[in-house]
Every structure is written in C-alpha cells, then in structure tokens.
C-alpha cells in the first residue's frame, strides 16, 4: 500500500465515529499497536522535544532502503498520534516519507492537534520523522556517488 492508500484506510476507520470520545478511544487503542522502541533508546538523545508528555522516536533503514520507526510515550494520546504517523510512514523510502502531506490528520478530526501552539508535540514528531528521512536519503545519495 502507498502512503496515500494507508491514509485513506485510516480516514475510513475514523469516519465510523461521530462522537469525539469514540475517536479518542480508538486513537488510544491504536497507541497499543505502536511498534515499541527498544528500552535502550529511551534516552534524551531520542526524546522528541516540544511535548508536555515524554515521547521517544527511533528509526532504522533496511537493505532495500525503506525506513522503519519505533517509538513510545508516557501519555496515551501522544502514543496514539505517533502510532498513526508510524502506521502510515513506516516501511517507505525517505523520498516517499518526505513527500507525504499528512493531510489525513485533519480529515480524521484531529485538526486541533496540528496547531503548533498545542503542547502535544505533533509538529515536533513530524519534524523528527522528516529529519530521519532526510538523513537516510543523504546517506544513500553519498553511497551512490561513491559507487
């Protein structure tokens, strides 16, 4: 599935709920599916700044050049939001990750979380994900040049 297709699946899933409470309950459930970061990476180095809750993010790239994320947070809503991002973005190339517009977050009714003034750190999470993607892309470009 492409990023866009995965986004559409999530939009559809969330559209079942009219009540915001059910939406949050589902978001919290999704948080439980989060690929959890290895305890050894739960350090300040992998801490995402800008969250009122603590959240950690780690990324690695496989041989085919796809990026995989793991994360965790001590707040369940934050965990749910990272889980959504990872669901959509993990397993894609750095280029695909950088090109994603992530408009699905707005469409599922979590728009208020997109505001940079919110203390949930969604904006910082997205930045951190893009930072990893950019770094991996740069690395692979350098490799190609050496060949």
């Amino acid at each position, binding site marked *: 599935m492409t990023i866009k297709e995965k986004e559409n699946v999530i939009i559809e899933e969330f559209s079942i709920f009219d009540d*915001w*409470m059910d939406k*949050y*309950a589902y978001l*919290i459930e999704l948080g439980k599916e989060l690929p959890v970061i290895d305890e050894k990476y739960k350090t300040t180095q992998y801490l995402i700044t800008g*969250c*009122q*809750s*603590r959240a950690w993010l780690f990324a690695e790239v496989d041989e085919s050049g796809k990026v995989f994320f793991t994360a965790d947070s*001590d*707040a*369940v*809503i*934050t965990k749910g939001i990272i889980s959504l991002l990872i669901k959509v973005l993990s397993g894609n190339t750095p280029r695909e990750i950088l090109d994603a517009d992530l408009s699905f977050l707005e469409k599922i009714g979590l728009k208020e979380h997109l505001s940079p003034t919110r*203390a*949930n750190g969604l904006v910082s999470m997205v930045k951190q994900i893009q930072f990893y993607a950019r770094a991996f892309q740069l690395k692979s470009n350098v490799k190609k040049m050496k060949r």
Partner: protein
Amino acid sequence: MLYNIKQIREEFPILKQTINNKPLVYFDNAATTQKPIQVIDRISEYYKKENSNVHRGVHHLSQVATEKYESARKYIAEYINASDPKEVIFTRGTTESINLIANAFEGFINEGDELVITSMEHHSNLVPWQQLCFRRGAELVVIKANQKGEIDPDGFKKILDEKTKLVALTHISNVLGTINPVKEITRLAHDVGAPVLIDGAQAIAHIPVDVKDIDCDFYTFSGHKTYAPMGIGVLYGKTQWMEKLPPYQFGGEMIDSVHFDNTTFNELPYKFEAGTPNVAGALGLEAAIRYIDRYGVVNIKKYEDELLDYATAELEKIDGVQIIGKADEKTAVISFVVEDIHMYDIGTLLDQMGIAIRTGNHCAQPLVESYGLTGTVRLSLAMYNTIEEIDIFIEALKKVIALIR
C-alpha cells in the same frame, strides 16, 4: 453587596461561550482570570474619551488622563493600606516588579550574603534572586515546604541571621494553594534586619491584603490575575526603601533634568516608571479592584472556600486521585495526579468537554519535582465559578479515567 452568583456570572461576558459545543468551564484562574464588563468598559471609555499621554501636556485631555491615572494609584494604595500613593509603582506585572527589585538590590548584595526564598516559589520569584546571587557571589537559601505543602516559620528562624540580606516568598502558592504565614515570617526577617518581598500574584483577588499589617517591605501583584487587563501590575515598596534604591530603567517620566554630563531623576513613584505608562491598564486595574471590593474580598473568600471544600471532597472520592498540597490554610487551587494516567491525557480530554484546566509544572519546577512529579493537573477557582461547574468537571474526569483505563 449580596453575593449573587447569577449576577456575577452575567458580568463576565466570556463565560457565556461554548467550547467544543459545551458550555465553557473555566478553571484556570491561577494562570489568568476573566474580566468583568466593568473593567472592559473602563478601558474602552478611556480610549473613547480620555486617552492622552500623562504628566506632560498642559492640554485638557492630558490633565484628565493624568488625574485618572494618579487617582487609580491612590485608590490601589488605599486598598492595600499603603502609607502613601507614591509607594505604589505601576509595572507590567509581578514578574517585572520582582525583577525591578532584584536589579535595584544589586549594590546591596555582596559576596557571602544570603538571600532566602521558599521551595514553593514561582520561577518569577526564584530565578531573579538566583541570578542576582550568581552575579554577586551570594548564596540562595531555600526553605523547604513539608509534605502537606506548608512552610514552618521555625525553618526560617534557624536560617535567618546577619548574613540574610533579603527574604522573598509567595503569599499563596500557585501550585498548592497554600497561604503562607507572611506576617510572622516578615517579623522574623526584620528581627535580623532583612527586608521582605512578598509575591502576591495569587493573593490579591482571593484574600484581604494589608501591607501595613504584614509590614513587608515590598509586595507585588499582577492585574491579569485580579480580573484586570494583562500588562499591568503593581510594586508596593516602603518609602524608606524606595528612596534608597536606584532606578531600574531610564527615560521618560522618571527623568528630572538631563545634561550631557549628568542626569537627575524624578521623585517617587515616577523614578521607577520609565517610559509612557500603561494608563488604560492602571484604570482597568482600579476598576477590577473596585469590582472585588463591591462584593467584598472576605465574602469572595468565603464563597471560594465552599467551592474548595466541595471540589476537594468530590475529587478524593475518585479512585486513584491524589491531591498535592493539603495545607490547613489554603485557597481554591487544587493540584492533583491520577495514578497511572498522564496529566497531558487528562488535560486534552477535559478540553474536549469544554473544561479549561492547567497541566504541567506551573512555572514551579523545583516544587513539583520535590513531590517526585513532572507535573500536576491543576484547577484554580475564582469568584464566578460554581458548584454545578465542579459537578460537570468531576463527571468529565470520571469519564476520562474510564476511557484511558
């Protein structure tokens, strides 16, 4: 005047709105209070009919503005029982008031001196003193609150001596709600010759304040936590100190005469009011304190105490809720944590239900950490809150806990 809560709520226009289709329940009053129509109207009237720069012009409007500005000072001085209106300096707020004193004290602090604060200070009554100590090679001594969130004056007795050059403490903790025994601590500080500054940001709207009775040397508060606008505050300072202290900022009304080789400064209170002052803010603050006085701060306190007792009892009934700060003398500020649930989750979900509370360290990081926490959920009540709102909050909190668990 009779404490008519229905009428009071009518007087605060913002309370009529809905958030996420739910009636607004505003429980973040320790951060800032809402403004009654009397204050809003006063500011608007000033800009419609009286706006002019003060103390300068000979023209009619300037005279009017100056007169109103000075009469606001006089009213506030009387309200806090200062000896003279010139002991009331208008500032931007508590933070600026404290920074003013911390800077003006520079020349009075030397290596080896001690400045004494408590562990429950807001960062604004901690960092200015800490930095002053760094600059002057002095030591910052911290008196720790006990588990209940109370300061034992005996703790001060042991610490205070001839090395103590200043004591700074909060009247009421913005995290715990504790009302500190400021009068007793002031007496102890004066016994060793140390002046006392009291951070009254959380006090002025909620309990009677009499600076003469406390006998403190400096008392500070902000307008915006007192039903007045943002950007206005007060520094009260005893004349004998304020005469001695050097100016803090230069220019404008604080000047007497200027030559290229020297400048002389204006007298009190103008010496500490550089630049064009916030006249509309000062008039708004006067209107706000008149508003408080109309209902009577003693009646407000009585009413808020009922809210405090009710909210505390209801919160304690909920499984896993732990209240932080259980001082015998406290105002309607309640910090709490819920076992295994992050404060941020609680704050986010309560917001969805139209309830405004605060989460985090409340600008008092060392205090919150002393309880082994990174933050708390805090509700802070004001004269316009109601028992019904507390019921809504409690029901909402129960829902949130059920959802997360």
